[in-house]
């Protein structure tokens, strides 16, 4: 097997993790990874030797993700939903998550896709600001602002969740 394919294979676990943080559902996340790999292999020649395979693959996947989110946005799929709708969304059965993990995963899904991507890039995937800005195709200032707002929003949602939990306990 050639070196390029070996390098791509080695990145799959990281791609899956990034996809999972963007989409939550395991099968959908793997579908996104599959699309990313298909596109990458068709365009192997675009990948310059010396360039990090990770950065190249993450860039491809991010574009796929944003393209889809844009279509969703345009189709107006996302009609107004009450807050409770989020809680009604059942977590996939096979995913065993602790309450804390589920809460933070829910909160992460609830922040806007561009902030989510920026935050995950840096906080989970460990890219530097320069690398993440490059992958997401935004200026460093925009990236920083998305990270800051994303963190703030995430914390606010976690506080809300904690409050709702407290209210429920009181009601019991």
């Amino acid at each position, binding site marked *: 097997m050639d070196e390029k394919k070996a390098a791509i*294979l080695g990145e799959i676990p990281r791609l899956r993790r990034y996809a*999972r943080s963007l989409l939550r559902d395991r099968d*959908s996340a*793997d579908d996104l990874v599959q699309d990313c790999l298909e596109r990458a292999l068709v365009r192997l020649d675009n990948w310059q030797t010396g360039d990090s395979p990770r950065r190249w693959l993450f860039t491809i996947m991010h574009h*796929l993700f944003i393209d889809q989110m844009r279509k969703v946005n345009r189709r*107006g799929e*996302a009609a107004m939903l009450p807050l409770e709708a989020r809680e009604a969304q059942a977590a996939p059965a096979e995913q065993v998550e602790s309450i804390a993990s589920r809460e933070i995963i829910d909160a992460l899904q*609830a922040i806007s896709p*561009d902030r989510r991507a920026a935050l995950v890039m840096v906080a989970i995937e460990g890219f530097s600001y320069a690398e993440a800005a490059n992958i997401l195709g935004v200026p460093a200032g925009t990236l920083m602002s998305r990270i800051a707002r994303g963190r703030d929003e995430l*914390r606010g949602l976690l506080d809300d969740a904690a409050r709702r939990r407290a209210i429920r306990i009181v009601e019991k």
Partner: protein
Amino acid sequence: MTRRDFSERDIHMALDGELPVDERAAYDAWLEANPEMKARSVRYVADRAALRAAFAGVLDEPVPARLKKIVFDEAPVETAASSSRWWRAAAAAAMLAIGGVGGYVAGIDNLGLEDPAEDQLAEQAIAAHLIYAAEQRHAVEVPASDKDHLQTWLSNRVGLKLVAPDLAAQGFQLVGGRLLPAGESKAAMLLYEDAKGERISLFVTAESAEKTKGTYGSGEDGPEAIYWLDKGYGCAVVGSLPRAQLTAVAKSAYSQLIAGLAS
């Protein structure tokens, strides 16, 4: 040691390993001297740990065979249908975004991804807001005291049955309105103000062929527009309010405008 003023921005930089080494000691001292900032930093550190923990297991999962197969397959083909498979999950994710923020798509703002039509509407609305909301004496052509005339006049000019929404429940009173150019047609702008003098505006045009909605930001700190286009009209609510508050205003304005159009 570098001396400078630190801010919340530095908390993120420090957390992400982007703070220059020679500023670290001064930053730590600043954090110690600012309990509120320190508490914030501690919360963010904990959130990051929780985020990492929540997804750590994914790296240990065996790579699904279908993914390996793509890499090993000799002749890769890009299938047009493939990208639609996870579309529904993306839709669900977008809906979750709404659940969280309590309004519209908490969208792909500042990415320059929107349709030209909605771009235009949002940009025109934001431009009008920036110009007229800042005017104290000449913000509107027809004041709220002449509301009936305002509604009739704008309805006739724009070509829609326009009813100025009552946003008192959200703390906003009508200041008045004006007529504006919008591309090749006309737009009505309705200006509202709260008790603190914070202003928002509604921008309504009769020109729209498509149906969509979303949010649009003019820049990192500028006002934001929540817009929707439906058959025959487009509307944007513009303001510099927190997203949740602007969303609440937009929801109320939306339902009242719809009711007005149908009346």
